[in-house]
């Protein structure tokens, strides 16, 4: 890596804003932070005195907890606001809420919001650094980075790998961030699912659309299944979970087509027996819990980097 390199981004809004060099740099920092979580005293003073607000307009357990743990391990002060406790319930606009938060001088706002593009809107109206923790069906960049980190840890590289993503690509911000991230680092990304799950023009992001799960999985180094949402109204995407599981569920049999050392991934939460069989989720090659562990490290790295990457204390 270029010695002159500096991470230049004040906000993390989407994978699309990061160069390959940026992504590799985040991963290298995350790798160095990962060890902190293994210490008996899991805390460094790097972000002491920084105020971080977790601003979640959608229900989330693991992402919010992951960011909160990351912030606390860096000694930042964290506060959680969720949609049910925020003034959004009282009709306040996102911008007004943001300005009110701004008046309390937070350093970082981590936003989860159902509207695509809302982190960008927020970044235009506040001085705090904004980290997108999932916006609509747009992106979930910290998840994209933790997926890169997990594959990198196990395969030692991203370039040249074949990544198969199976499921509802159209409604998945994780798939979007992963396609951008893996493609930018030189992997080939294949996507598969019924056509009702394929967004128009997904090829323009660099993904190759496969007609069947078997085609996508054939010779793949990584197979990722996405959570199938059951709650979409007025839009018949699949006839039943049963039929979906039969044709697109990731099973041991399907995985026989992949490389023998295939990694199994899932952004969670899993519908066991629908998009992925339990023996696959818990079996050899499954790195699903590594993803969760790496999530904390990646988020520690992101908090550190958007704060300018200053060494506020001992990170060793």
């Amino acid at each position, binding site marked *: 890596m270029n010695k002159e390199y500096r991470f230049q981004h004040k906000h993390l809004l989407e994978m699309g804003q990061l160069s390959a060099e940026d992504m590799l740099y985040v991963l290298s920092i995350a790798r160095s932070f990962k060890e902190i979580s293994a210490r008996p005293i899991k805390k460094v003073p790097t972000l002491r005195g920084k105020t971080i607000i977790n601003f979640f307009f959608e229900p989330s357990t693991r992402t919010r907890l992951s960011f909160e743990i990351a912030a606390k391990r860096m000694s930042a002060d964290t506060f959680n606001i969720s949609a049910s406790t925020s003034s959004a319930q009282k009709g306040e606009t996102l911008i007004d809420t943001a300005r009110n938060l701004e008046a309390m001088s937070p350093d970082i706002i981590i936003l989860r*919001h159902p509207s*695509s593009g809302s982190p960008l809107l927020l970044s235009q109206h506040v001085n705090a650094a904004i980290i997108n923790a999932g916006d609509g069906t747009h992106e979930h960049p910290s998840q994209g980075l933790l997926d890169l980190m997990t594959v990198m840890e196990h395969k030692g590289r991203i370039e040249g790998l074949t990544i198969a993503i199976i499921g509802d690509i159209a409604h998945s911000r994780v798939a979007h961030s992963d396609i951008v991230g893996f493609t930018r680092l030189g992997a080939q990304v294949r996507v598969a699912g019924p056509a009702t799950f394929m*967004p128009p023009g997904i090829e323009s*992001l660099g993904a190759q659309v496969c007609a069947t799960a078997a085609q996508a999985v054939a010779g793949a180094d990584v197979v990722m299944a996405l959570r199938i949402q059951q709650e979409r109204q007025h839009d018949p995407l699949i006839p039943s979970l049963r039929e979906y599981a039969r044709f697109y569920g990731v099973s041991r049999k399907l995985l026989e087509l992949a490389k023998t050392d295939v990694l199994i991934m899932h952004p969670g939460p899993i519908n066991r027996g629908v998009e992925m069989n339990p023996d696959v989720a818990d079996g050899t090659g499954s790195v699903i819990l590594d993803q969760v562990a790496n999530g904390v490290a990646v988020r520690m790295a992101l908090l550190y980097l958007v704060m300018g990457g200053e060494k506020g204390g001992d990170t060793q």
Partner: protein
Amino acid sequence: MSEITILQNGRIIDPANKVDQQGDLWLRDGRIVAPESLVPAGARCIDLQGKWVVPGLIDMHVHLREPGEEYKETIASGTLAAATGGFTAVACMPNTKPVNDTAAVTRFILEQAVQASARVYPVGAISKGSGGTGLAEYGELKAAGVVAVSDDGQPVVDSQLMRRAMEYAASHGLPVISHSEEIALSRNGVMNEGQVSTRLGLRGIPCAAESIMVYRELALAELTGARVHIAHVSTGAATDLIRQAKKRGVRVTAETAPHYFTLTEEAVAGYNTNARMNPPLRAEEDRQAIRIGLQDGTFDAIATDHAPHSVLEKQVEFDRAANGIIGLETSLPLTLALIRAGVISEARLVELMSTAPARILGVAGGSLAIGEVADVTVIDPERKFQLTEEGIVSQSKNSPFLGWQLQGKAVLTFLGGRITYNDLLTAQVDRLKAEGF
């Protein structure tokens, strides 16, 4: 004593009378009159060397927001914006609060318009409250002053209702203006469906949502023999359908808007809510197809769909923003750009922006014939200006063209012989400054 204005040495472009020549135009007591050999004492003479003199522009599709949403626009502010953009008349859509579905609302609008800076032609609702069930009282609406009916903004879902609307409107001599949208396909969509919507993670509206409904309207016009006007066409597919229908003699007219021949879906990048409207900005091939439709006569009119919204509706998350943009002050410059691009001629611009709208709505203007109302627009095709929020006259500033450097604009607008907008002096000062004075 009569009031006489003589517009001297302008290029008079009047396709309705097959005129395109240098000359003088005389306005007397609100009418266009034949020039006389002697200039009468007290006549106001304006030298318009280098300018175009055309029949007053007519925008057949605007939203004036009054009654009900006066914080966005009023009949006064909207018509002032119209005069500024060179328009002498506008047809206002019925989706006010309350909906213009009764003569009382029509009369209210016309009373408010008495002092307005442009003629206001109310469009009545197709169905009661634009609710999609039951016909509004077209006879009474027409007697009160409506010039057409439309449920603009609320597509007519029920095909039988649309059929009856066409038949019944024909009995009262009113055209039906169709907002063509199959809402089962467009539901929840916020921009064109395609690569860009996928990249931005926004729900898409496929082109088929428009073309399916345009096909229905054409089939119903054919069935009933009534005439239909297709509003704000955005897709190449719908343009093709209209072209074919016209060839086989269906009584259809159609309009498109400047944003559809100027911008594409790429304008949404950055989640720009001023690039959100319905129908949405489409792909480049659609933009090209719309331009061809303007060239070959598939489109009869250019209308703005002027849709003022305040920051309350626009400074929000993209998928929560209101649809619509203002257009009255940018329509002429954007259409003049089509001339410079070789897409249309000067005469065709006048047809699209004045003559055809007057004919479709059956209203005054659209022509500079002797005896016509003295609604006249003077255009300086060279004049350059930058569109800024401060410069916009409309009460709302929701334009995707903010910051654009535009060329060509109205510099003088006459409504019944009375000046409603005058920018000649500013132009002169600018020129003198440019020449170093």
